[in-house]
């Protein structure tokens, strides 16, 4: 079936790798596969959105607005997932995503994903575990950064 390449691609993403192939196939079926030309905006920072973007091919730039103007915070390669938090929760986009090259993107809507989670609870479980693991890692990073900042402040005070 011609959804197979997409399923293969999804399986290589950290977010989706634990989810069974048949569920991923269903997800791919319900999602649109869309082309973005180089330079096109995929989503704008601050916009309300309920879709996640999975890059099947090409590269995307993540751009954030700063006081000094737009800043390219990162470049995402093929097989990256963007905007999954906005898909899950009702928050504005944290950054602008612009196509660096021509891209093939799978657009996963909240409706489709939640429907999948409702239908197959084990998918929900896996997503929860994934997000928990991320949270743990982020908390660790934060703790480390805080302690570094504290020691820098101390050093500055002493100097």
């Amino acid at each position: 079936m011609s959804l197979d390449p997409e399923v293969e691609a999804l399986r290589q993403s950290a977010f989706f790798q634990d989810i069974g192939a048949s569920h991923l196939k269903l997800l791919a079926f319900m999602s649109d596969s869309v082309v973005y030309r180089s330079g096109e905006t995929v989503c704008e920072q601050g916009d309300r959105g309920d879709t996640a973007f999975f890059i099947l091919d090409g590269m995307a730039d993540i751009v954030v607005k700063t006081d000094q103007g737009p800043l390219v915070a990162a470049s995402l390669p093929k097989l990256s997932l963007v905007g999954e938090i906005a898909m899950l929760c009702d928050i504005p986009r944290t950054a602008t995503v612009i196509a660096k090259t021509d891209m093939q993107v799978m657009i996963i809507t909240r409706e489709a994903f939640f429907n999948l989670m409702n239908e197959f609870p084990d998918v929900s479980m896996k997503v929860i575990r994934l997000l928990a693991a991320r949270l743990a890692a982020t908390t660790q990073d934060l703790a480390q950064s805080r302690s570094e900042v504290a020691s820098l402040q101390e050093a500055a005070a002493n100097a």
Partner: protein
Amino acid sequence: MEKTLFRFIWRFSAREQIIILFITCCSFPALYYSLVIPKNIVNEAISGTDFPRSYLWIPLDQVPYLLALCFALLAMVVINNALRYILNIYTGITGERMLRRLLYELLERLVRFQPKCFRRLSSAEIIPIITSESEQLGGFIGESIATPVYQGGTLLVYIGFILIQDPVLGAAAIASYPLQAYLIPKLQKRVVRLNRARSKNIRALSRDINEMVTAASEMHARAGSQLHLLTVSERLYQNFRVRYEIYKRRFLIKLLDSFISQLAPFFFYAIGGYMVIQGQISLGSLVAVLAAYTDLAGPWRELLNYYQHMVEMVMRYESVIEHFDHKEMSERDQIMPPLDKNAVLSGELVVESISLEGEAGTDPVNAFSVVAHPGETMVLVGSETTGRSALLRAIGGLEEPLSGKVRLGGDDLHRMSEMARAQAVAFIAKTHHMFAGTLRANLLYGFGIVEPEMVLMTGVGDQRPATRLHEAKITASAHPDLIDFPFLDADRRTDLEHKALQLLDIFGLSDDVYQMGLDLPLGADAPDALRQTILAVRAKIRALIAADDQLSDLIDLWQKDRFNRSASLGENIFFAVPVQVGADFNQVAGDTLALKALAKAGLLQDLVILGADVALSITDLFADVSGDNTLLSAYSFMPIDEFEDYGRIARRAKTAGAAKLRSAQQAKLLALALAISPLRHRIVKISGQLEERIVKARGLLRSFVDASPLLTPIEEDTILPALSLSANLVLGRRRPDRRGSLEKVNQLVRDVAEDQGVRSDITRFGLSFNVGSGGANLSPVQRFRVGLASSLLREPALIICDGLGAGSLKQDKDLLEKIRFCAPNAILVVGTSEPSFGAEMGRTIDL
């Protein structure tokens, strides 16, 4: 209106009734002879002697004589039946024409009702009165005089025959009739009362149903469904009860008649038998009398049925017309006067001491007077309780005041014809009611007949114009040739459309109507000039798109020698679109001619296999999904409960080959394949090879497409009626895998169309937009603006605007300025509850 049914019948169909009577009486001799001839055949022809006898002055031997009599009998039977048939048809026609006359008169009265009449009688009650309650009157009217005469006459003939045999027995035969004639009317009265109750109940039920429908969202939002179900259930129970009581009485009457009638033979046998034994009458006479008595039963029963029916119909007629006999109706002349095209009202508005009664929650208005001049703006300031709205309605001629007069240019607004008043006065309200039909029809409402289909419909039977006119004349109904309400001729229409478009532009609806024009299916009857324009612009747009890389990236143009990945396989293969807007290719797939054509083109097998692949993939994908998952069923190509079926057929196709399937099964799989749109549906892959073969096959399939009533071929130099104007301009499909392609293509079309100067043509075409029932396809703001344009189109002398200043003051001020701009010489009367709003606009009067 005539007060009783028989007065109505006599007044309008006296001639027809006499003819019916005449035909009825003509049938008596034939009936009589058809009774006499069999007796003659037996007595004279078969067992007779003394031949040759003459029949009709021709001497005949026995067998010819027999045959002659038999043929005479046959002739009587034929004549009898022919007369009966003619009679039935004629009574039917008479009755139906009278019904049409009656219903038209009722509806004409409806039009003449003043608005306050509708407070007591809602549309929900009027509809059953006009449709079901009046229906039976038609059938009855035709036979109202003929039946009793015919049956009564037949009865008298038989009774006469019996009396001739023996007066005593004759007296015995008719002895029961006086008793029945006394009892039955008494019982029937009760039935009449019950029928009245039944009608009332049905009308109440009608009201309840109407509420449930019109207030459906309110009912559901506030959990009222159960209450309404209880109410209607009780109504239905009461209906059942009353019908049951009616049945009991009606069949009691029939029982009475039946019993009494069958009692008579008891007397015959007793008294008659005694008389025979005593030798006072012969046995033969007794037998003949008994036979004749049996024959009496038929006509008597018919008379009885007629009587019951007649009483019911008389009551029904009265109950129907009592609702339409109001004192407060406009005169007929006001609604349908001869049109005086030159009468244009203008001049001073003089309100002389008008008084209005107060309604619930508002004060009465006492002796209000004011004068206003052309070009003046007058503001009446008062809250809702001051009766301001009623006052404005009275000034505008919509409601008649209790006393006093309103004059415009010297003429009494309440006495003039509807036409004249509509031309002179525009009443602008926040809620504008629209009629089902096109935008054009709504804007030009009242100027004449805009859409001939509204008054010249298609139907069955004789539809010739001459017949239509004749029938209208003899039933005193309305017809375009009899009423002075003209068909709008082309020049006037164009003129009015032009003015209407200008007004729509002033009130900010121009863009909306332009977009409506773009989105409207062109249809088979698009004007020629528009077609040529579209083709010219199409060429430009296609050239633009082909030359621009970015644009070609967004839209796949239709080209005869290229496969269009943004369109479905069905469209690609046949290089055509379904004639019906928005239809899919399922019907085409089910057409055996299509299957043949595809087989000839060498594509059928591959498509069926492709369809099988789709079916198997889908069933596979959805294997574990629960049956009632609504989102997934939206994505599925087949309904979930047919998965097994499709799966079976698909597996068979894959293993045994497409040729082994029955054509119905092939059609199912073919339908799936035809629906696939490669860029949108990635569930199966369409190989490049298949794409090429599809393109090559287009030529082979062209003859099928041309002959098929389901498809319109795609051609660069003709328009496709099934597609919208916009789709016709582009003749391509937007790429489903490019975000924002729809908006960009729409913008391109709009821009090019404006550049080419065809925007006004398209906007004019947009006037054919169907606004839906009550204007449901427009937003309230749009409806309001259409109302403004329609009102000002007439160039009224007096414009009344109520309820301003309540919301945005600036918006309402802008509105009034625009109105003033459109009608510089009109008298503008504004009603508001905001004193500050009034102060800026013109002379204010506090209520």
